[in-house]
C-alpha cells in the first residue's frame, strides 16, 4: 500500500474518467472520458454551464465521490484503487476544502475551525505558519468568535485559512465566493491567488462566475461531461466571451 505521495510535478490527475448517475435508461453520464492534469503550484478554474459535470469533476478528483470508470490520482497515488478508509486518509492528510457555504462547525471557534484538519490528523500546528496565514487573511481579532458571530466574508476566509493550515498537496474549492458580495468575493479570491503565488499552493476551483475564474492561471471549460477547451492567462472578458459561445 502506497498512500504516501511523493513530491511530483502533478498534484492531481484524472485519466479517462467516466461517471454515471443512475442505472439503465435513467442513467446520466456526468463525466464522459475526462483526462486532465493539475500541475503543482497552479491555480486552475473549472467552468461550464449547469449540468456540465464541473462539480462532479471536482468531487471525483477530491475523492469525495467515486468514478464509474477510469482512474484519478492525488500526488501520484491512484485513489480510485483505494478503500473508503484509505481515501479518507488521503483527504485528511493531503487535501484542503473550501465549500460554497457551511464551511465551519458551528460549535467550534474560528481558531478551532482553522486547526480542525490538524486536530483530526493529530498533528501539531506550526505557529509561525498559522500566524502568517491569519495575518494575511486578517483574522487576528476574530479567532475566539463562533461562526455565527462572523460575517459571510469572514467565514469564508476562516475556511481558506483552514484549507491552508495543513499545507495540503492540493485545495479544492467549490464556488468559494458564490455566497459573497462582490467586494468580499474579490478579497477572498485575491487571498487564494496569493496563496498560489507566494506559497506555491495548488488550488482547483469550480465556478460559474467569469470574474472569479479570471483569478486562475488556467481555466478548463467543461460541457456535457467533456473538457472542450482550456484557457491560460484569462481575463474576465475573454472568459465571458467563451462562456457565451458555450451557451449557444
Amino acid at each position, binding site marked *: 500500500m502506497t498512500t504516501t505521495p511523493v513530491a511530483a510535478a502533478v498534484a492531481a490527475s484524472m485519466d479517462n474518467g467516466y461517471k454515471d448517475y443512475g442505472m439503465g435508461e435513467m442513467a446520466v453520464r456526468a463525466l464522459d472520458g475526462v483526462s486532465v492534469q493539475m500541475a503543482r503550484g497552479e491555480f486552475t478554474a473549472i467552468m461550464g454551464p449547469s449540468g456540465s459535470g464541473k462539480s462532479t469533476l471536482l*468531487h471525483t478528483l477530491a475523492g*469525495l*465521490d467515486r468514478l464509474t470508470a477510469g482512474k484519478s490520482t492525488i500526488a501520484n497515488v491512484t485513489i480510485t484503487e483505494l478503500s*473508503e*478508509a484509505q481515501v*479518507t*486518509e488521503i*483527504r*485528511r*492528510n493531503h*487535501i*484542503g*476544502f473550501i*465549500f460554497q457555504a*457551511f*464551511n*465551519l*462547525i*458551528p*460549535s*467550534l471557534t474560528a481558531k*478551532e475551525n482553522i486547526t*480542525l*484538519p490538524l*486536530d*483530526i*490528523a*493529530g498533528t501539531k500546528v506550526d505557529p509561525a505558519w498559522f500566524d502568517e496565514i491569519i495575518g494575511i487573511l486578517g483574522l487576528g481579532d476574530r479567532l475566539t468568535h463562533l461562526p*455565527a458571530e462572523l460575517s459571510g466574508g469572514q467565514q469564508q476566509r476562516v475556511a481558506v485559512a*483552514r484549507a491552508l493550515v495543513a499545507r495540503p498537496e492540493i485545495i479544492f474549492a467549490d464556488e468559494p465566493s458564490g455566497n459573497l458580495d462582490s467586494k468580499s468575493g474579490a478579497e477572498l479570491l485575491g487571498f487564494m491567488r496569493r496563496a498560489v503565488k507566494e506559497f506555491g499552493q495548488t488550488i482547483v476551483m469550480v465556478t460559474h462566475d467569469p470574474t472569479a475564474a479570471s483569478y486562475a492561471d488556467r481555466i478548463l471549460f467543461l460541457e456535457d461531461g467533456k473538457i472542450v477547451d482550456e484557457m491560460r492567462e484569462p481575463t474576465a472578458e475573454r472568459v465571458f466571451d467563451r462562456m457565451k459561445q458555450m451557451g449557444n
Partner: protein
Amino acid sequence: MFKLAIKSVRHNPKRLLLTAAAVALGVMLLATTQTLTAGLSSGFSGLFSDIYGGADVIVEEQPSDDDNAQDFTSGDMAFQADDVTAVAGVDGVADAAGGVQVDSAAILAVDADLTDPLAQFGPPTQLFNWTGEPAFDRATLEEGSAPSADDEVVMDFESAANLGYAIGDTVPVLSATGATNFTLVGTVRFGDDNNLQGATLAYITEDAAHTMVGEDGYQTIAVKLADGANADAVVDGINQVLPDGTRAITGEDKAAEQAAEFDSALQYIDIFTLAFAFIALFVGSYIIVNTFRIIVTQRTREFGLLRAIGMSGRQVTTMILLEALVVAIVASTLGILTGWLLAVGLGALLELVSGPIFGPLVVPWTAVLWSYVLGTLVTLVSALAPAVHAARISPMEALREAGTQQRKPLKVRNIAGAALTLLGILGITAGLATTVDRPYIWVGAGAAVIITGVTLLSAQVLVPLAYALRGLLTKMFGIDGKLAANNIHREPRRSGNTAAALMIGVLLLALVATFTESVKSVVAQQLGGTDAALFLVSADGSKISPDAIAAAESVDGVAFASQLGIGAVQYDGADYSVAYFEPETVDQSFTYNSDPAFSQINGGVYIDPTVEELGVKVGDTVTLVTDEGSFDLTVDGEYLNKGDANFWVDWSTAEQMFGEEAGADQVLVVYDDGITADEDQARFDEVNDTVTAALAEYPTVLAFPPGLLQQVANQGIDFILGAITALLAAAILVAILGVMNTLLLSVTERTREIGLLRAVGLRRNEVWRMITLESVVMSLFGAIAGMVLGVSIGVAVVWSLGEFGFSTPTVPWIWLAVYAVGAFVAGIVAAIWPAWRASRMNVLEAIAADG
C-alpha cells in the same frame, strides 16, 4: 387539517418512530400486567367455582371481618354430627355431609429432604375427608379405589405424578402433630380438568381425618338439594337450625364471594403496576417533548410558509397536536397488542413453573381504556409546549436562511427548578430535623418535589457539568471528544431532558436499592442481637406445637427455648396486634428495643409508638378486649420500634386473654454457655443436628439458624428489589430510547456538519466514536445524578422511618456500580443506530443537504 397531520406523520415516520416506541413501551407494561392479573383472576374464579360450585349449598363458620383471607386454612370445628343430621332434615335437602379439612397438612415429594427447612415452601396441600359423593368431594376417582380403610389416601393424579408417587406406595402425610404414613390407593380428578393452580389435593377417610385433627366435628357441611328445591329457600331453612356464628350460603354465592375477595387483592397489584406504567410514560414524556421541539425547529420554514399563505397560529398548534394524537393512537394500539403478546408469552413461561394458573389471557377493556387515555394524555400534554411555540413562528421565517435559531433563555425554567428543589429540601429537612408526626410523609412529598425541580434544573446543572469534561474528553479522544462535549452543550434543554429521563429511572432504582439494602442491615442487626442458635417458626402460619418445643428443649446442650406468640386484640373499638413473651427468658434470647427491659414486666403491658400516639402513657391503664373477655392492664413500659406489635404482654396474661388459642409463633432456642460455632464448633454442630432430628417428627416446625433465617429474609428482600427493578425496566428502556432518539434527531440536524467533518478527513470510526461519546456522557451523567439523588432520598426515607427500627441507612455500592456500568453500556448501545447513520452518510449528499 387532520389530513395534513396524517400526511405529515406519514411523510416522515422515522423521526416519530422512537417517540411512538416510548409511548408504546409504557402502554405495553400496563397492558401486560393487567392482562396477567385479569387472567389470574379468571383462573382463580374458575378454581373457586370448581371448589364451591359443585355443592348446592355450603354451611360454614361465619367469616369474620378481620380474617386476613386465610383461604387455605379451615378454621374451627363449628359443627357436630347432630348439626349434619339437622341440616339433612331441612325441607328441600336431599343429602348433607360433614366436611373435615386437616390443617397444615403437607405431602412432600418422594425425595424431599425433611431436615431442610426450605424444602417445605411451595404450593399448599389440601387434605379432606372423602365422602364418595362427587358433588361434595368436588373430585371424581380417576384410577384405583377410594380410601376405605383409615390408612388409605387418594390424591389428584397430577400431584401424584409430580411428587413421584404411584398407587400402592407409602405416602407420609405431615401435619402439626407429626408424620403419618398412608398407602396411596387411588388418584382423583378435581372438577373437570384438575385445575388446582399448583396445589396438591388429597383425601382420607373421615375417621383418619378426625384422628389427624385430634378433634371430632366438622368445619363445613356440604348440602345437595332435592330436585326442584329453591336454593335460597333452603338456605333460609338451614340457617334456622344452625348454631350461632355459622351460616349457609349457596355454592354459587360462595364462589362469587371468594372470587371477589381474590380480585380485591389483585386490585392492589393493578394499582401498583399502573404506577410503574405511569412512571414509564412520565419518562417517555421527556422524549416526546424533545422530539416535537426538534421537529418544530426543523420545520420552521414549513410553518412559516403555512403562516404566509394564511394559516393562523392556532391552526399550526392544532395541526401539531393532531400529529401528536395520531402518534399516540398508533403507539397505544401497538402497545396494547405487544403487551398482550408479552402477557401470553410470560403466562406460558410462568405456567411452565407453576402449572396452569391463568384463565384465558385477554386484555381487559379497562386496560384498553387506561392505555388509550394515558398514552394520549401524556403525548398531547408533552407536545403542547412545542405546539404553542410553533404558533409564534412568523411568516418571515419562511424567507429567512435556516441555521441560526434564537434560543429561548433558560431563566424561567431555572427559577422554577431551583424553587422546587429548595422546597423539596425544606420538606425533607422539616421531616427529619423537627419532631413532626409521620416524618416519612414529609420526606416522601419533599422527594417528589425535588425530583421535579432537579429535572427542570438538569439543563442548567447537568449540561455545564458535562461540558466541563470537554478538556478531558479532548485530551483522551481528540477532536471527536471535543465535538461530543460541544454537541451536548449546544442544546442544553434537549440534552438536559435526555439525561433527566434516565436520571428519573436510575433515581428510582437507587432509591429502592438503598431502601432494600437498609432493610437487609436492619435484619442483620436484629438477628445479631440474638443469643439463640435456632429459630423455630411454623411452615404454614399455625401455632408451634408445645410437644415440638418440649422436644427441642429436652435435647442435651439446649439451655432453654423462649416462646413468642402473636394475637389480635381490640382496644378502644379498633383492632390491634399483641405479642406475648416469657419474661424469664425473653431478654436472654433476644435484644428487644424496649424501655425498661421486657423482663421487668409486672403483669401489665408494654405499648409501642403507635399506641403512644393515641395519648397512652406509662402508668395508664388500658382495656384490651379478646374473645375471652376484657382485660384491664397497667402500662409497664414502652416498646420503641413501630410496626412490630402494638401491645406486649407476658405469657401468663396471654393465656388468660386467649385461652387455648395462646401458643408460640416463634421460638428462640438458646444453647448452654460455651456451645457456639466460634467456641466449640463440633459440639455446636452436634447439638444442632440433635435438635433438628428431634424436630423431624414435626414437619410443620421449621428450624432456622439465624444465618439461614437472614438468608431467607434477604432472598425475600432481593425478590422485591428484583420485581421492582423489572417493573422499572420499562422506564429505563424508555429513557435509553430517549438517548437514541435525541441522537438520531441531532444527527439528522447536523447532517451538513458531519459531511464537512468527513470531507476534511474525519474517519468513519471517529464519527462513530463522537456520537458514542455524546451518548455515554449523557447516559452517565443522567445515571450519576439519578444515583446521587436516589441514594440521598433513600437515606432520608430510612432516617424518617427510625421509629420502625430503621437505624443505619446502607448505601448499595454494588448496585450503584451495576447501574453505572449499565448506563455506560446503555450509552454505547443507544448510540449504535445514530452512529451508524452518521458514519454511513454520503459525504456529498450530506454537504449538499438542505439545512
